[in-house]
């Protein structure tokens, strides 16, 4: 609109320096413009304001919409069914509570039922996906065809496009690649490793380390060749990470090397006591006079930093940490129960027990974990995640009062719901420690709390007057979240 630009340009520099001429205004306005110009009583500012007011009005009345043949292709029809109204309403409530675990819970159910969310909620959900990368695959699936179509207009939402895992691995952002790698490693560890091997030469050292850090998931002898080949890598970090991983595989050369050395270090010693009347079996921990010193290049330290453990013991301690627990059954020709007993009864062996525990967790030896729990004099909390759920529950409840924070920490890493008893223990402890375990703690772990735990909340009210009010608020909040969880279950199972 040239005439309006002329008005604005004159206004910018002021009527002291410039006037608007009749020629600068539309011919349609000739009549009022002439009247204004011919008004001798008006000064130049007044004339300009009047002309501008006429032009302003002319501009506002003369609007015509732009004629253009543009179009966007409409969203394709959904292939899956929409979720129910109740489920959609529950989703809205979950979104307003901003509980990501609850949202994940809802999405998992929606995905399992092969349903999609109603269009109204798409922008909110896609927005959450940009912040919570681990939800992206679920969100993309639950947003359906319309979500995929919508994300075509917003780059930040492009995770919603239904690319295959391999496409995502090859062309995705670093975060997307990590997520898909992690997931594939869970389901198909060989495929994940093959993907990594294919793109390995193109990755930089940091990315390589990042992916290696995800390899412990389902690590096996199949990975040895690949990890061994990394000994020629330029990056020190990559090499160290590869060695760390090899130490977790029972069949790797490095573990075998440690085992061979351990065979010479740890032996059963039979002694006669009480004038040869009683025979006593004990363990001997002693390094051979000479051994392959290349072990010191694989992360084994030579010097102990503790006064209670000698340098020799410390080297053996580190070797034990990297030997699969089953090794001891062969080496000492005893069953696990007796091996544990031998270690416990021996002065030097006792010092080695934490190394044994470390090996159990490193090699995720669930059978040894159980033996250890049953026969150990001391409770080793690190073993809890290796036990069966029921045993985890039993030990968590048994030792809860002694190690509440550690047990809560392991409990939060579980994928299965807590029992009512464990929930109750956790409620009681958290009620007394409201600053450490606030509403956000429950917001993060609500997926683990069973619906039937609601009945226990009131019973967990702390005796201290000052804590009661906070607990009352927290338990209201827990009830709200659990209710949403129950509603989600009902909505998808009805």
């Amino acid at each position, binding site marked *: 609109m040239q005439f*309006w630009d002329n*008005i*604005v340009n004159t*206004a*910018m*520099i*002021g*009527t*002291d*320096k410039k006037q608007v001429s009749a020629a600068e205004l539309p011919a349609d306005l000739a009549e009022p413009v002439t009247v204004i110009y011919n008004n001798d009583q008006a*000064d*130049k*500012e*007044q004339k*300009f*304001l009047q002309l*501008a*007011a006429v032009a*302003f*009005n002319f*501009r*506002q*009345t*003369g*609007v*015509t*919409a*732009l*004629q*253009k*043949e*543009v*179009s*966007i*292709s*409409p*969203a394709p029809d959904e292939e899956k069914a929409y979720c129910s109204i109740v489920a959609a*309403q529950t989703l*809205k*409530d979950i979104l*307003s*509570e901003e509980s990501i675990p609850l949202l994940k819970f809802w999405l998992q159910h929606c995905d399992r039922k092969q349903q999609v969310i109603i*269009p*109204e909620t*798409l*922008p909110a959900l*896609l927005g959450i996906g940009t912040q919570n990368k681990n939800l992206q695959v679920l969100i993309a699936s639950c947003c359906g065809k*319309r*979500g995929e*179509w*919508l994300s075509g*207009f*917003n780059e930040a939402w492009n995770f919603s496009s239904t690319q295959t895992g391999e496409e995502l691995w090859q062309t995705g952002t670093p975060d997307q690649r990590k997520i898909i790698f992690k997931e594939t490693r869970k389901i198909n560890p060989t495929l994940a490793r093959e993907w990594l091997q294919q793109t390995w030469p193109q990755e930089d050292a940091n990315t390589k380390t990042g992916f290696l850090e995800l390899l412990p998931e389902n690590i096996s002898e199949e990975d040895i060749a690949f990890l061994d080949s990394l000994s020629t890598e330029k990056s020190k970090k990559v090499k160290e990470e590869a060695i760390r991983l090899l130490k977790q595989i029972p069949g790797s050369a490095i573990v075998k090397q440690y085992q061979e050395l351990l065979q010479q270090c740890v032996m059963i010693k039979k002694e006669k006591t009480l004038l040869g009347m009683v025979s006593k079996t004990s363990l001997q921990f002693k390094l051979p006079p000479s051994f392959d010193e290349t072990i010191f290049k694989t992360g084994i330290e030579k010097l102990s930093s503790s006064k209670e453990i000698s340098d020799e013991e410390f080297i053996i301690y580190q070797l034990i940490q990297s030997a699969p627990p089953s090794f001891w059954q062969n080496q000492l020709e005893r069953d696990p129960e007796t091996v544990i007993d031998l270690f416990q009864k021996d002065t030097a062996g006792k010092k080695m027990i934490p190394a044994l525990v470390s090996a159990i967790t490193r090699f995720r030896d669930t059978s040894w974990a159980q033996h250890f729990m049953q026969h150990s004099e001391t409770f080793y909390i690190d073993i809890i995640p290796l036990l069966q759920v029921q045993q985890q529950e039993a030990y968590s409840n048994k030792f809860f009062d002694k190690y509440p924070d550690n047990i809560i920490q392991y409990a939060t890493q579980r994928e299965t719901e807590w029992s009512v008893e464990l929930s109750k223990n956790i409620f009681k402890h958290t009620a007394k420690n409201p600053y450490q375990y606030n509403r956000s703690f429950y917001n993060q772990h609500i997926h683990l709390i069973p619906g039937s735990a609601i009945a226990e909340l009131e019973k967990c009210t702390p005796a201290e007057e000052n804590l009661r009010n906070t607990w009352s608020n927290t338990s*209201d909040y827990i009830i*709200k979240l659990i*209710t949403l969880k129950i509603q989600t279950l009902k909505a998808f199972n009805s």
Partner: protein
Amino acid sequence: MNLSEDQILTLAPDESSKKSGKDLANPAKWVSKGVNEEALWGECQGSGSKPYQTQIDIVNIAFKCSCPSRKFPCKHGLGLLLLYARQKNIFTAHELPAWVKDWLSKRTEKQDKQAEKKDKPVDEAAQAKRQQARQSKVSDGIEELIVWVKDIIRNGIMNMPEKGPAFFENMARRMVDAQAPGLAGMIRTLGETNFYTEGWPTQFMDQLLRIYLVMEGYKNSPALNEPLQQDIRTWIGFTQNQEELKEQKGITDTWLVISKQSIEEDAITTERTWLYGTQTNRYALLLQFIVRGQGIQHNLTPGMFVQAELVFFPSASPLRAIIKRQLSTSAVYQFNKFENWEQVAETESQLNSQLPFRSERPFIIEQLKPVLYNKQWWLQDTANRLMQLKNEYKSIWKLLSLSGGNPSDMAVIGKEDQYEPVGIWQQDEYKTL
């Protein structure tokens, strides 16, 4: 009364009320609950020994609760409405308890008393004297403002961004002193021009010219028709006595609530509710100023149909209205819509010729679809004509996801060449954006 959960939640005064309201939409929280054609009521067990008595007038949508909350409606009112929306069948009591009966009859009494109040004699001579004194003050103020505006124009608006807020605020205060609060507000708006955007000179000039037109219009009032004079008086800041207005005959129709927008400033919430008369084909704007802690006159929520008698404020292009009487509510599915942007532009031009300094208006338009052109979103009508969406339109993603890129009937608010969609019809259901 058939309100959806979303509609009920838009009645909430804030986010925390929404959350608390949802928590209370739980049958376990209510000791008693009942409904009949007049009211919805329930007793909610709170932290005190006695349950809170919550009651809702469902004809005029009004709330009352015995809880101490200053929020309006309180969480109990919202919770009860939500519960009713979710589980109507559990509202088994139908006979009004005494406390609900009392409240409903008090509401009727209050209305009668208000009618009585109107009968008080008014000292007309004193009133006329006060009016004259004010008019003279306003005229003096306007003379001062004209000099200020001319100064701006003489020196050019180029240096306006450097002037700072005090330059505008001082003149706004002069207008308050001159008893022209409307002009004061217009000057503040002028000072709030976003000088960091590319098109600020046009934005600034539009507002400056509006001020100029109002001033000149006031000076030339005698030559103008009565409704236009009223418009000018309103823009200057003369108030219209709403009680007097209510005595006039209004327009009864089933009104669809198109949109509700709230702005909070200096502890006062201004609520703008846009309505469309389904039979009279008229649009209306209800303005409600809510001071925190005080009750509100009406609770309308987008998508709701209200049968009511509305009285419009006198204007060359009547839009603002007040509710004189509210009757029962029921849904209407057939009504007129604008066919395309050309019709909207024609209406706009016509309205503009009657009132050249107007605010935005709503329009319900058939079959619009969002399209992307020149990296901007537009609304395309069936004749392939495009109208640009308002700058920084926040609900574009919701609009896209609801429409799926298909044409839908839409309610928009705007003027000239920019509009903002506020609602969209999907299978006869109105969804707010």
